[in-house]
C-alpha cells in the first residue's frame, strides 16, 4: 500500500473527535502558515525597499555634500561628514558603515572602527552609468546591504558613496513578527483544540449513547433507560392506553405506509414526541420513538404468541404439526399426547403415518403433491385449503385402534412446508352409532320374529311327524318299511339342518359388528336374509326374482350389517307393494327383484319392487332420519337412515330410481375391496 493510501486508511480509522480536531487544525494551520509567509514576504520586501530608500537618500546626501570635499581632496572634512551622517540619531543602529571611493575605487574615507576589509572595496562596484547599486555583502559574519551611489560633479563621476545598512534591524523586526505569529498560531491551536473538543463532544456524546443503547437493544435488553438529553418529567410513556392494552390501536404505530393520507396521532399523544432542537436532539427523539414503537410491537407480539401458544397447548383438540417432506411429527400439543398415550419425546420425529397405517396414505401424499418441492409459493397459496377425512382408523400406543376425524391444513412452519392436523376422537360417536344400528337391528329382529317363529315351526313339525310315525308303528308293533324309514330319517336330518341355519343367521344378525371390516361376497348376506323372509313374503303372495352374479369380487364390510340393510330394503319393498295391491289381488304385480353384479371396480346390489313408488320430493328426503311415508305408528323412519349410514361407512352410495305408481329400484354401490 502506498504511503498515501496508508495515511488515508489511518485517517479513516481515527475517532470522530480526532478527525475533526485534525481536520480543523490542519486547515487552520495551513492558512495561518500561508498568511505568515505572505505577511513576512510583504513585510520583508517593503521594509527592505524602505531601508534602501533611506540608505540611498543618505548616500545621495553624502554624495552631494561630500562632492566638494572629494574634489578638494579634503579627507578630514569628508570623514567628519560621513561620521556625522552615520552617527546621526537613530542612524547609528541602522548604518553599519559609510565609505567613499574615488573613480579608481580607492577608499577616500570610511567610518569603520576596524581596519577596512579589502574585499569590501570590490564587493559592490558601481558601474559607470549606473545611478545606484544595491548588493548584499558579508562583512565579518554580518550581512550588510551595500548601497552605492555615484558622486557626480556635473556630468563626471568623481567617486561613489557606499552606505552599509545592517540587516539586523530588519532581522529583528522580522524576528518580532515571527514571534508574534508563532504566538498567534499557538493561541489558534489551543482555541481550535478547545473548540473542536467541545463540538465533537456535543455530537459524540449523544451518538455514543445511542450506539450503546442500540447495542443493548440488539442483545434483546429492552429495559434500559432512554434518557437522552435531559430528564423529561412530562414524558411518561407508561400512561399511554395503547401500550397497556394491546387490543387498542396506536394511531401513530398502526398507520399503514400506503395509507398515509395524513399522518394521524392522538390529540395528546403521550408517547411520540418531537422537540425543537438541532439534528442531534431530533435524532435522539426519533430514536426514542423508534425504541418505544419496538417495545409496543414486542409487547403485542409476545401477547399474541402467548395467546396462540396457550391455544396450542390448552386446545381441547389434539393437534399435530407434520413436516410435508417426510411426514415426521414436528410438534404435538398436550391433548394429542394424552389421546394417543405417548410421551412428547416419543412422538416427535415419529412418522405420522405410523399412527394410522390403514389411513388412506394417498390423502396425505396427494396433499404433499400439491406443494411438492419446486412448486413455489403460488401453489402453496392455492393449496392452502384443507382436507377433511372422517372416520379414519388410528392407533394409540400399544396398537389399540380407535376412530377419529382428521382435518389437515397446510401451513408454513419455520420456513418449511408443513401440515397442521387436527384430530377429533369420535370413538364415543361411533359407539353411539353402533348402538343405534344395534337398536335398529333389534327392531328388525322384532319384525322378523313372526316370520322366524313360522319358519322354525315348519321343520319342527316335520321332525315331530316323522318321529310320531315311527312311534306309532312301534306302538302298534308294526315294522317300518325300509323306504319309509329312509324317508323319515332323511327328512328329520334335513329339517334339523334347516332349523339350525335359520338360528345361525339369526344369531349372526344380532351380533355387534367387529371394529375391523371383513371381505364379504354380497350374495351371502342376500341369501341369508332371504332364508328368513322368503317364505313369509311368499305367503303374502310376493314373489322373488333373483339375478345374483357369480364370482363377485368381495367388498370390505360386515356381513350382518349388510343383512340388516337388505332386510330393511326388503321390508320397505314389501310395504310398498302392499300399499299398491292386496295379497289377495290375483292379477296384481307383486314382485321383488334382487340383482347383484360387479363392474368398473364396484359391486352393485339392486332391489326393485312393483310397489307404489316414490315421487321426486320424497325421493330426496327418504334417507333422513325420522322421515317416513308410512302412517303414524307404522314405522319410526330410521331404517333407511341407518342403512344409508352403514353403506356410507363402507365407502358406498345408495341410488334410487322411482316414479309414483311405478315401483322403485334401489341400488347399493360398493367399492371392491383392494
Amino acid at each position: 500500500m502506498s504511503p498515501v493510501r496508508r495515511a488515508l486508511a489511518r485517517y479513516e480509522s481515527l475517532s470522530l473527535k480526532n478527525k475533526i480536531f485534525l481536520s480543523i487544525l490542519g486547515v487552520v494551520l495551513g492558512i495561518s502558515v500561508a498568511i505568515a509567509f505572505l505577511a513576512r514576504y510583504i513585510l520583508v520586501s517593503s521594509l527592505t525597499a524602505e531601508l534602501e530608500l533611506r540608505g540611498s537618500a543618505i548616500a545621495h546626501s553624502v554624495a552631494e555634500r561630500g562632492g566638494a570635499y572629494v574634489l578638494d581632496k579634503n579627507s578630514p572634512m569628508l570623514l567628519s561628514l560621513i561620521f556625522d551622517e552615520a552617527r546621526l540619531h537613530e542612524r547609528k543602529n541602522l548604518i553599519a558603515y559609510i565609505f567613499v571611493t574615488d573613480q579608481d575605487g580607492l577608499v577616500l574615507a570610511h567610518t569603520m572602527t576596524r581596519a577596512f576589509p579589502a574585499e569590501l572595496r570590490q564587493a559592490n562596484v558601481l558601474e559607470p552609468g549606473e545611478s545606484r547599486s544595491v548588493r548584499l555583502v558579508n562583512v565579518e559574519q554580518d550581512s550588510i546591504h551595500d548601497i552605492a551611489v555615484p558622486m557626480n560633479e556635473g556630468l563626471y563621476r568623481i567617486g561613489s558613496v557606499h552606505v552599509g545598512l545592517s540587516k539586523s534591524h530588519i532581522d529583528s523586526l522580522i524576528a518580532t513578527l515571527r514571534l508574534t505569529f508563532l504566538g498567534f498560531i499557538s493561541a489558534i491551536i489551543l482555541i481550535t483544540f478547545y473548540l473542536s473538543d467541545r463540538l465533537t463532544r456535543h455530537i459524540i456524546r449523544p451518538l455514543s449513547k445511542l450506539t450503546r443503547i442500540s447495542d443493548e437493544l440488539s442483545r434483546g435488553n429492552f429495559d434500559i433507560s432512554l434518557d437522552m438529553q435531559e430528564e423529561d418529567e412530562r414524558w411518561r410513556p407508561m400512561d399511554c392506553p395503547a401500550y397497556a392494552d394491546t387490543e387498542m390501536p396506536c394511531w401513530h404505530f398502526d398507520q399503514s405506509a400506503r395509507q398515509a393520507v395524513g399522518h394521524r396521532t392522538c390529540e395528546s399523544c403521550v408517547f411520540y414526541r418531537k422537540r425543537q432542537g438541532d439534528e442531534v436532539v431530533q435524532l435522539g427523539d426519533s430514536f426514542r420513538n423508534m425504541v418505544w414503537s419496538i417495545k409496543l410491537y414486542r409487547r403485542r407480539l409476545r401477547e399474541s404468541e402467548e395467546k396462540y401458544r396457550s391455544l396450542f397447548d390448552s386446545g381441547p383438540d389434539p393437534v399435530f404439526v407434520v413436516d410435508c417432506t417426510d411426514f415426521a411429527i414436528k410438534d404435538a400439543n398436550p391433548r394429542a399426547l394424552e389421546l394417543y398415550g405417548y410421551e412428547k419425546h416419543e412422538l416427535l420425529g415419529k412418522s405420522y403415518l405410523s399412527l394410522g397405517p390403514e389411513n388412506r396414505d394417498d390423502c396425505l401424499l396427494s396433499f404433499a403433491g400439491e406443494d411438492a418441492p419446486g412448486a413455489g409459493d403460488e401453489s402453496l397459496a392455492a393449496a392452502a385449503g384443507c382436507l377433511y377425512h372422517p372416520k379414519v382408523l388410528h392407533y394409540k400406543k400399544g396398537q389399540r385402534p380407535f376412530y377419529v376425524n382428521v382435518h389437515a391444513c397446510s401451513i408454513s412452519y419455520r420456513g418449511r412446508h408443513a401440515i397442521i392436523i387436527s384430530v377429533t376422537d369420535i370413538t364415543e360417536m361411533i359407539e353411539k352409532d353402533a348402538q343405534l344400528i344395534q337398536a335398529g337391528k333389534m327392531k328388525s329382529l322384532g319384525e322378523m320374529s313372526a316370520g322366524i317363529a313360522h319358519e322354525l315351526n315348519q321343520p319342527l313339525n316335520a321332525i315331530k311327524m316323522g318321529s310320531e310315525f315311527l312311534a306309532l308303528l312301534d306302538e302298534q308293533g308294526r315294522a317300518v318299511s325300509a323306504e319309509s324309514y329312509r324317508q323319515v330319517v332323511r327328512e328329520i336330518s334335513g329339517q334339523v339342518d334347516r332349523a339350525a341355519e335359520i338360528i345361525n343367521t339369526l344369531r349372526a344378525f344380532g351380533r355387534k359388528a367387529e371394529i375391523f371390516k371383513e371381505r364379504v361376497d354380497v350374495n351371502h348376506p342376500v341369501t341369508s336374509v332371504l332364508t328368513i323372509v322368503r317364505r313369509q313374503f311368499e305367503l303374502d303372495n310376493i314373489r322373488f326374482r333373483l339375478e345374483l352374479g357369480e364370482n363377485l369380487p368381495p367388498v370390505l364390510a360386515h356381513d350382518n350389517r349388510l343383512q340388516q340393510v337388505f332386510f330393511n330394503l326388503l321390508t320397505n319393498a314389501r310395504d310398498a307393494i302392499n300399499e299398491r295391491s292386496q295379497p289377495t289381488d290375483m292379477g296384481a304385480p307383486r314382485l321383488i327383484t334382487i340383482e347383484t353384479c360387479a363392474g368398473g371396480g364396484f359391486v352393485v346390489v339392486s332391489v326393485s319392487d312393483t310397489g307404489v313408488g316414490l315421487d321426486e320430493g320424497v325421493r330426496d328426503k327418504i334417507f333422513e332420519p325420522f322421515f317416513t311415508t308410512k302412517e303414524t305408528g307404522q314405522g319410526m323412519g330410521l331404517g333407511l337412515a341407518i342403512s344409508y349410514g352403514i353403506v356410507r361407512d363402507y365407502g358406498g352410495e345408495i341410488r334410487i330410481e322411482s316414479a309414483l305408481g311405478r315401483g322403485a329400484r334401489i341400488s347399493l354401490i360398493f367399492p371392491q375391496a383392494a
Partner: protein
Amino acid sequence: MDKKILVIDDEQPTLNMFRLLLGAYGYETLTAANGAEGVEIFERERPGIVLTDIKMPVMDGIEALRRIKDLAPHAEVIVITGHGDMELAIRALNLDATDFLNKPVQRQGLSQALSRAEERLAIARTHKQEIAVVEEDEAVALILRGSVTARSEPFLTRAMAVARALGKAEIVLDFDENASINGAGLAFLTSLLQEARDNGDAVCIRGLSENFRKVFEVVGISRLVEPCRMQTPG
C-alpha cells in the same frame, strides 16, 4: 277299503310326513301344495276328510275351506294351525271348518281328530240330526253328537224346551267326543246359554273334546256355563 284323505300344505316335508303317518292309519293320502291345487283335487277325488294348512301362497287355507265347503257342505275340513293360534281356529270354525289341529302334529291329536271326523261323517250319512233328551236322576241331559251347526238350532231349541218342561234341577249339555261346533253353532249356543241364565236355569256342560273346550274358553261360553261336577255313568 282305503279311505281317501286330502292334505293341503305348501311344505313338502310336511306333506311327506303326513303321507307316511296317514298311511299308517290306513288312509290313501292325496297331497296338494296350495289351496287352488287342493280345491282342484277335491273336486276331482271327493275325499271324505281334508286336512289343510292355513298360510299358503297363491290361495290360502281359508279360501280353500270356503271353496270346498261350497262344493260339499258336509265335507270334513280340519285346519292345521300354528301352535296355540286360537283366533285362526275360530275364524275357520266360523267358515264351517269342523276341527283344527295344532302344529307340531302329534299322533294322538291326529288320530282323535281323524276318528271324530269319521264319526261325524257317519252321523251325517245316517242323517241323525236330532238331539236326544235323556232323563237322569237329578238332571236332564241333552245329547249332542256330530256337527252342531245352524241346522241344529231348531232341534236344540225344541230339546231345551222339552228339558225345561221336565222341571229337573239341572240341564246338562252332554257333548259327544266327536261333537264339532261351527261358528253358527257357537253363536246360537251362546245365545241359548244366555237365555237360560236369564231364565234362571241351571245348565252345565259335559264331555267335549279338548280342542272345543279351548274354543269355548276363547269364545266366552265357559263364562256362561260351568262343566258338570258329576260324571254320568256311560
